[in-house]
C-alpha cells in the first residue's frame, strides 16, 4: 500500500515537472515550491544526523572533546547575521572557511591544474610502433594546447602572426573540443529520459516490465 501510493505520488510529480515543457503552470509551481522546501528540510535532518550529532554534540557531551566547542562557537557566530549591530561577527566563520579553503587549494591546484597538465603535454610525438593516427593525434595535441594557451593571453592584442594566427587556431581547437563534448554528452542525457520512461511505464503503469 505504502509503495503503491508512493509510486502514484511520484508519477504525478514526474508529470507535473514534465508539464513545464509545455508551459509554466500551477501544478509545476506547486511541485517546484514543494521540492525546495522538502530538499532543504531533508538537508537539515541530514546535517543534524551526520555532523551536528555525531561530530559535535556526542563528542563534547559523550567523549569530553571540549576543544570542539571552538568550531561550534565559531559556527554559531553565523547567527549574528540576523542582529544588524553585530552582524560583522559573521565574517569570522566565513574568514575561517575562506582562508583554510584557499590555503588547501593552493598546492593542490598547482599540482592538479598546472604540473600534472604540463606533464601530460610533455610527450614524444612518435615512438616505435605507433599507428599514424596516434602520431597525428599527438601533433594536434601539442600544437592545439599551445594555440589554445595563446588564446588565453590577456596582455597581448590578438594580432600578428604569433598571437593573431595562434589565438585563431586556438579557438578552433577549443570549438572542436566543445562540439565533441556536446555530442558525447547527448547519450548520457537521453539515458536519463529513458530512466524516467521506465519509471512511468514500468513501475507506475506496468505497460512494460
Amino acid at each position, binding site marked *: 500500500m505504502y509503495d503503491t501510493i508512493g509510486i502514484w505520488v511520484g508519477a504525478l510529480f514526474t508529470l507535473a515537472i514534465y508539464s513545464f515543457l509545455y508551459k509554466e503552470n500551477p501544478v509545476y509551481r506547486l511541485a517546484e515550491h514543494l521540492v525546495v522546501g522538502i530538499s532543504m528540510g531533508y538537508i537539515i535532518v541530514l546535517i543534524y544526523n551526520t555532523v551536528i550529532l555525531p561530530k559535535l554534540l556526542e563528542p563534547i557531551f559523550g567523549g569530553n572533546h571540549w576543544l570542539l566547542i571552538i568550531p561550534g562557537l565559531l559556527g554559531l557566530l553565523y547567527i549574528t547575521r540576523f542582529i544588524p549591530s553585530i552582524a560583522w561577527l559573521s565574517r569570522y566563520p566565513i574568514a575561517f572557511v575562506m582562508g583554510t579553503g584557499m590555503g588547501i587549494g593552493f598546492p593542490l591546484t598547482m599540482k592538479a591544474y598546472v604540473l600534472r597538465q604540463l606533464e601530460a603535454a610533455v610527450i614524444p610525438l612518435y615512438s616505435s610502433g605507433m599507428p599514424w593516427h596516434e602520431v597525428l593525434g599527438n601533433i594536434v595535441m601539442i600544437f592545439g594546447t599551445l594555440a589554445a594557451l595563446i588564446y588565453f593571453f590577456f596582455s597581448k592584442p590578438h594580432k600578428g602572426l604569433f598571437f593573431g594566427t595562434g589565438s585563431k587556431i586556438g579557438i578552433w581547437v577549443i570549438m572542436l573540443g566543445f562540439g565533441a563534448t556536446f555530442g558525447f554528452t547527448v547519450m*548520457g542525457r537521453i539515458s*536519463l*529520459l529513458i*530512466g524516467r520512461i521506465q519509471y512511468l511505464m514500468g513501475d507506475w503503469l506496468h505497460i512494460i516490465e
Partner: protein
Amino acid sequence: MGAVNIWEKMLNLDRRWIFLGIGIISIVFFLVGFGMPVTTTKEVENIFDFVNELGPDDAIFIGFDFAPGTQAENMPMAVAVLRHAFHNNIPVFMTAIVPLGQGMAVSALNYVTDPAIDGHYERVLFEDWADYREAGITNREDIIAAWERDGNVLPEGALGWVFEGRDYALLGYLPLFHLVILGMTNSIETQFPVDYHGNPIGEMPMLKEHKSLRDVDLAVTNAASGACTYWITYAREKIGLPIAFGVTGVMATDYYPYIQSGQIIGQMGGLRGAAEYEVLLQENGITATTDKAFRGMDVQSAEHIFIILLIVIGNIAYFAGGFHKKTRLKGRG
C-alpha cells in the same frame, strides 16, 4: 517572400514540437524496439570472461554505488552481472557506497527474482531454509537436494534456486564507505555484523567461506560518481582485488587510463556498456533474451538520429532561406 516565410517558420520552430518529438520517440521505441545489433567491445568482454571463469567456490562483490537518478544506466549493468553470477552459482555480496544505492540493490534483486518474469531465479529467504542450515547442510547441491526432497518444486520459467546467505547477501550501505572497504580487507563481518534485513551474516555459509575481501575474486562497482575509485584505492591497491567498473556514459572516458594501467579489468560505459553485457549473456546462452539496456539502445539510436535530423533541417532552412547572407553573427567567432 512566401518561401522565405516557410524557412523562417522552420528556423523559429516552437521548441515544444521538439520536446514532443523527443517524448514520443522514446515511448514508441521503448514499446516496439527494432533490435539494432550491438557489437561488443574488449572492455566489456573482459569482465564477462572473468566472471564466466568463476564458480560456486568463488565470490564476487556487486556495488550498487548509484542513486535513482542514474538508474537507467547503472541498473542494467548491475542486473546483468547479477544474472551472470546466479547462473554460474557464484556467491554475490551486494553493497552500496551511497545511501540510496541500498534501495537500488533491493530492486535489482526483486527484478531478477520476480516470479512473473520468465527466466527468473527463485529466491529462498534466509529464515526459510534455517532448518537445513542448522542441520549443517551448507553445500549448495546438498541444500537444493534437501530443499527439493521436502516437496519444493522449481516453478516453471525459473532458471534455478538462489538461497539468501548461500548465493547472495545484501549487505547494504554504511557511511564513509572507503573505510568500510578498508575494513573488509580484514573482515567483512566486523563491518557488517548483520545484513540489510538484519540477518546475522556470521551464520551465512557464504560468509564462512569468504571471510574478508582477500577471499573474494572480483568487485564490480556500478557507480555514478568518482566514488568507484574507492574500490581501486582501498581494495585493489591494498590486497590486489580485481575490480571492474560500470560507470555512466559521461564518466566513461575519464576512466580509460585505469584500463590501460591494469588497475581495472574492464569497464561498462553507460547504457551501451550494459547492452553489450546483455548481448554477451544472450550469446552464451545464459539468458534467453536481452533486457532493458539493449532495448534502451534502440531509443538511444532513434533519439540521436532525431537530433541529427533536427540539425540538418535547421541548416537546410538556414541556407535555403538565405539567412546566411544577412544574419549578423551572434557571440564570438
